[in-house]
């Protein structure tokens, strides 16, 4: 036990606080041998036969060679199970509080002179007392009769568990000093923790044989893998990452039994001491005493499980232009196989380093250290955006696991809530959506609604109403539809991007394949099933085969995919929003044809889209100029400082997923009324005499869409109630989408001059103003049924009224056309007549 005379011993060595900042290890070396002895010696005086306090994190063996070492590195549960009974049975802890007491603060007042962990100002007794106090008296709320951890301990005893999970946050709340000590000197403090636990358990149930260990989790701050540095060695750290590799389970010897080859005498179990088992050189039997005759008996030895796991940084922690860092974790016993490759986990453990020997046979130690984390606790995080929804479904489970939201998470939520209170959040979000795609404000608003989604409703009768909003973008080539799609794909919680030409019906839904190894038929999910609870982006929708398109009918309304092939009959969930984009028939929008004829998709499918945007490219000098400006700016300005009022992508994702998870708006009465009124209005318009089938008429589906849209709009504001403005905006979106304001109901064609999609709000305002000024001028100057006025005259008048602002003839023409559509004036060539 005495000679800790190797560099490796740093790991076990206690640390001195003053040298901590720069190098925790430095001081340990001046006289480790002595101190160790001292410490052990003294400690044994205070709690009688405890296992060496630091046995759980065994001092890595003197020269931990890669090969022989490890038996010792790690927690000696296996071994201890034999030693503990004695410890537990003997009520040796005389200097602790009397067994009966579970109240009284003086549990642990010790008469003995204070004892310090070597090199620190940590008094063993103090820590012992603090831990005991914490375990006994910590309560989550004052009403509880029994302390949280007393309950937990009793529970562990009942189920014969092996570990007690201790929330570090609780420790901090109760005793921040203890927390600090624990994080800084985990080896020492945890050893004391274990002793205290052992005493408590043996007092409650003297027959309880197992040794209970404290598993600390939920540290206040978690470190990034990248920032681990030498000063973290021997400290408790908490890391997030993804498991990429698990080694096979390694049996680690705990106790060895030897047999004499000469006389067959079995030795007593020999316990691993600092990573080594000392093979007896002489037979223990008095009669034999043969030399070098002992051989290991494998099946009488005790082994414990050990596993080495590699943890890799999650992609979002990586700086640009770097590769992910990895770190090794050492798992023991119960933690073995707790995580599988691919799991995102949060790990709490002790960061350790060990020397590397040059060769197995050489004693020389390289000056290099290998680092690893002795794992104390492992928690699967899975707070990736993908699983937001899943957590919702299995709410109970999620709630139980997640009662420990980290501090920064709460901060973030607070921040999101603050954001949602801004009056201009709707426009701000719109602006932040694909900031590089220029204009198309209304389309972006629609897409925003799609991202937030409405509420899915399941009636007790079994009928369900989807909450997902489907959007179709139809438009001329070169109107950046694909870019919008790409952007949404990047942003959406889960989703796939496919191109119509490349997708077949089975590729979208599900297909049956033969497993090459077993020969069994297996069901492979297609794009729609894979994007369950996400957004499935389908580009070039028009180029998709009819067969594939027809598969979408079921998905878009029932949200399931039914399969009946190769003996497999199944119905799979495909609760996905569909975002499709298509070119009009003949690639370009033909203004002479009606909207329906231009889109040329079966009406059954069309009606399943909540919003159909016609993104038309209108020969308008002003829009062209804006485009030109935009492109030039892209090339000649520093793109970073172009728009600073934009919410960045991670924030936007956080905002969306929070809203989707936590906000479930309901319709207010006022809003419901407005909905009914608006719908009736819409129906009436659709039934306009002579409209025939040339326009998209309102169907019950539309009202569902409207509800979904208004719910989404309420969600954007983080509001639990859908209010009237939401409904009005939903109506507006629906109208704008179909260019209905610009549609000539008699022919079903669109008046190209009236297209408003893609026109920014300010531009729209300008046009509205123009219309109202023109109207007032006409009211003033012209009599009802009077003589007609030439447009140029009106322009002169307009210029006079709106001094300063530039007025173009084309603007006026637009305005007059709007008025004409209202039936206010009639246009004959260049002259206007009021009717």
């Amino acid at each position, binding site marked *: 036990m005495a000679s800790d005379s190797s560099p490796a011993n740093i790991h076990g060595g206690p640390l001195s606080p003053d040298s901590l900042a720069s190098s925790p290890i430095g001081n340990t*070396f001046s006289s480790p041998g002595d101190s160790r002895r001292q410490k052990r010696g003294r400690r044994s005086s205070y709690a009688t036969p405890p296992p060496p306090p630091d046995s759980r994190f065994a001092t890595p063996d003197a020269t931990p060679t890669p*090969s022989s070492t490890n038996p010792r590195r790690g927690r000696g549960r296996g071994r201890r199970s034999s030693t503990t009974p004695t410890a537990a049975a003997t009520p040796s802890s005389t200097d602790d509080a009397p067994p009966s007491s579970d109240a009284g603060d003086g549990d642990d007042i010790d008469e003995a002179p204070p004892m310090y962990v070597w090199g620190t100002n940590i008094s063993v007794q103090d820590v012992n007392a603090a831990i005991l106090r914490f375990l006994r008296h910590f309560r989550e709320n004052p009403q509880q009769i029994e302390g949280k951890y007393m309950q937990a301990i009793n529970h562990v005893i009942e189920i014969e568990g092996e570990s007690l999970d201790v929330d570090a946050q609780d420790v901090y709340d109760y005793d921040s000093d203890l927390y600090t000590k624990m994080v800084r000197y985990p080896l020492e403090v945890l050893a004391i923790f274990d002793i205290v636990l052992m005493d408590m358990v043996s007092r409650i149930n003297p027959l309880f044989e197992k040794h209970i260990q404290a598993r600390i989790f939920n540290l206040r701050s978690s470190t990034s893998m990248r920032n681990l540095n030498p000063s973290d060695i021997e400290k408790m750290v908490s890391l997030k990452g993804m498991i990429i590799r698990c080694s096979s389970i390694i049996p680690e010897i705990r106790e060895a039994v030897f047999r004499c080859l000469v006389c067959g005498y079995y030795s007593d179990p020999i316990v691993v001491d600092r990573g080594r088992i000392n093979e007896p050189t002489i037979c223990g039997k008095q009669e034999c005493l043969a030399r070098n005759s002992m051989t290991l008996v494998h099946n009488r030895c005790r082994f414990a499980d050990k596993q080495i796991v590699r943890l890799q940084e999650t992609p979002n922690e990586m700086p640009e232009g770097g590769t992910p860092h990895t770190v090794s974790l050492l798992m023991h016993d119960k933690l073995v196989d707790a995580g599988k490759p691919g799991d995102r986990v949060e790990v709490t453990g002790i960061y350790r380093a060990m020397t590397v020997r040059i060769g197995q046979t050489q004693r020389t130690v390289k000056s290099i250290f290998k680092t690893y984390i002795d794992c104390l606790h492992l928690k699967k995080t899975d707070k990736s955006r993908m699983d937001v929804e899943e957590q919702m479904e299995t709410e109970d489970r999620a709630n139980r696991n997640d009662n420990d939201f980290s501090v920064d998470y709460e901060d973030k939520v607070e921040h999101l809530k603050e954001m949602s209170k801004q009056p201009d959040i709707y426009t701000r979000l719109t602006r932040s959506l694909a900031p590089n795609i220029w204009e198309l404000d209304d389309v972006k608003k629609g897409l925003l609604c799609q991202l937030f989604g409405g509420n899915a409703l399941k009636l007790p009768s079994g009928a369900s109403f989807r909450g997902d909003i489907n959007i179709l973008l139809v438009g001329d080539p070169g109107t950046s539809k694909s870019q919008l799609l790409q952007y949404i794909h990047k942003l959406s919680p889960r989703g796939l991007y496919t191109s119509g030409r490349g997708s077949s019906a089975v590729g979208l839904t599900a297909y049956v394949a033969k497993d090459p190894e077993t020969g069994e038929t297996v069901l492979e999910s297609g794009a729609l099933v894979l994007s369950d609870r996400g957004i499935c982006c389908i580009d070039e929708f028009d180029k998709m085969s009819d067969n594939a398109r027809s598969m979408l009918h079921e998905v878009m309304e029932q949200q399931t995919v039914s399969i009946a092939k190769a003996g497999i009959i199944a119905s799979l969930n495909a609760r996905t929003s569909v975002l499709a984009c298509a070119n009009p028939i003949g690639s370009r929008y033909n203004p002479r044809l009606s909207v329906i004829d231009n889109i040329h998709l079966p009406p059954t499918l069309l009606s399943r889209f909540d919003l159909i945007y016609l993104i038309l490219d209108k020969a308008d000098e002003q829009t*062209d100029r804006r485009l030109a400006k935009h492109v*030039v700016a892209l090339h000649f300005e*520093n793109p970073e400082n172009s728009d600073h009022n934009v919410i960045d992508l991670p924030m936007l994702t956080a905002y969306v997923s929070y809203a989707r998870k936590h906000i479930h708006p309901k319709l207010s009465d006022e809003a419901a009324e407005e909905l009914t009124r608006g719908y009736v209005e819409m129906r009436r318009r659709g039934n306009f005499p002579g409209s025939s089938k040339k326009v998209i008429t309102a169907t019950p589906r539309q009202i569902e869409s409207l509800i979904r849209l208004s719910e989404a709009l309420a969600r954007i504001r983080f509001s639990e109630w859908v209010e009237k403005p939401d409904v009005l905006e939903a109506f507006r979106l629906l109208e704008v989408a179909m260019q209905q304001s610009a549609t000539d109901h008699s022919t079903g064609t669109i008046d190209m001059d009236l297209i408003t999609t893609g026109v920014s709000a300010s531009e729209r305002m300008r046009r509205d103003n123009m219309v109202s000024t023109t109207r007032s001028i006409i009211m003033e100057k012209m009599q009802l049924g009077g003589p007609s006025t030439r447009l140029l005259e009106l322009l002169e008048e307009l210029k006079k009224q709106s001094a300063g602002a530039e007025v173009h003839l084309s603007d006026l023409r637009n305005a007059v056309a709007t008025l004409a559509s209202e039936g206010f004036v009639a246009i004959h060539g260049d002259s206007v007549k009021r009717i």
Partner: protein
Amino acid sequence: MVGLPYDCLSNPLGAVRLTFEKAVASGSDPASFEGKDWGAADLFHDFLFDNGGLSQVPMLNPSTLKWVQPNTLVRFRGMIQDMLGNEFYVGAHKDGDIWRTNKFTDTSQFPMAPSSDMRIWERRLLYCIPVPGQNSWAEFSPEAVKNPYTNSLSPQREKRQREDDATMSDVDMQDSCHELQASLSAKKMREDEMDFQPLNSQKTATEETSSNASLVLDAETKSFSCLVKIYDSPESNLKLNDVFEFVGIFTFDPDLTADKDDSDELTHGFGEDALLHLPSSKVPRLHCLVHRKLAINDFLSVCPTLELKSNAVKELREALVGHLTAVLGNDRVTAQYMLLHLLSRVHARADTIAVGKLSLNLTCFNKESASVFGNRLKLAIENLLPFTHYLPLTVDYLNTVSLSPKKDYNTNRLVSGVLQLAEGSHLTIDETELQAGTLNSTGVENASVLKSLMEFQKVEYDFTYYKMEMNADVQLLILSEGKSNLLPADLILPFQPSSVDSPSEVDADMLKTWRWYLATMRSLPHSIEPDMQKVVEDDLVAARQADRSLGSQDLSRWLTMGRLISASFGETCLTMEHWQMVKELERLGRERLHGNM
């Protein structure tokens, strides 16, 4: 700096030690040196750059590897292919009462008393390979650095060392070693002769020899790599796929081979550790003292003292266009476009858009013209740009090759793919060989990787559990029969050669100036005056009014071309004249495209 008490070249560790001792003596606490430099780096910086020591430092490559001695100063040029994380080491320890440092070494020079006081520091490990696709002319000619050890090094010693290696290397390797040795000494002789000749001709000669040598070395060059250990440098300075020159202390330790064979359970566990797969007997280590990022200019053997005077540049440009025209069978329009293409680079990124790229798709190749002009073009580009690649695209190729780099978790290494390229590489994709066929899943994946490189200048790296997009800056040239549907290029141009005469030979000097020209013009900054901006905007609006099919991509391409044309004249500001040229060029291109359809 006269009479240095140490030799930075042959005993850099001595220099390090001396500065360390000096620093300690002056009262600094060794503990405070963590992550800092105590003057060693400054010293070497002075030595290398201010006193011209850099040229004396031998370049590490497969041929010099044979004679460079451990613990001497070497330099290495390469691309960071993988990052292996951090390594903790005993930075300083107490030997008795004296502080010693282990910085810049693998093993301690002084015995470390087991109980001694020590400080643990960290360093970063980078796995570097020679820049992929580097053309032979851009390689550093070994003759430039004399082997200072040839005389002192007794052959016997070499032999012994190699015998140590013999455990690892088989007979074949030994043979090749001998060969190399022979070729090296032959070169050495030649070099001696050449010392009398004027600089320029020597260069040409060395180029020849080096290209010969590179043939011999080719197989070895591929696997040649170097593990660079970086000290005290912020993480953001060194990025994946960056090209750097590292100057540092070379260690090559055949002793450490034992590691690999003796590994047992534990080493397997921890030792997905990439280091195990890179035994130091195979992969040399370089403890980096000074590193600097390299631009293409640094790969040019000679920089002509040409100034950016417009006339000289204009002549150069004219000559180069003439050369390209000859290469392209008298197709001057294509040659013009080609020049712009060769000058393009991604200079900014806005969201998903990479601004400044100009990928070129030359169509109308048929079997014959592809074999003639394809090869000619390939050679011409190889002669002009330092890093070039040529991908003959076939269905088989797509189905089998791994284009994007992939993380191998068994070895914990990033396995390089064809598309892990250094910034500014040129990639020619020959689609003329592509036949109808079925792509398997790898093929589809590869096609989409190529497409995303084309569209966004990004390559997806496969990390098994997720993909990670890395920015790239690669010039892409596609040769195809019709318009490539697989790979949408920025610019599609039917290629119309009018003669098949092979172009006249170009002399090496001219090539060198052209290389310099391309490298320099490419890095020029660019701006636009407000009134010119107005003109451009008006033109764009007018063009869009006239032709509705123009999208923002087209407009964006025009501006890119404007920038590149200005750059090709050595100007940093777009002028009216150049803008007109863009429009003219665009008109010619369009005419061709429509005439062809």
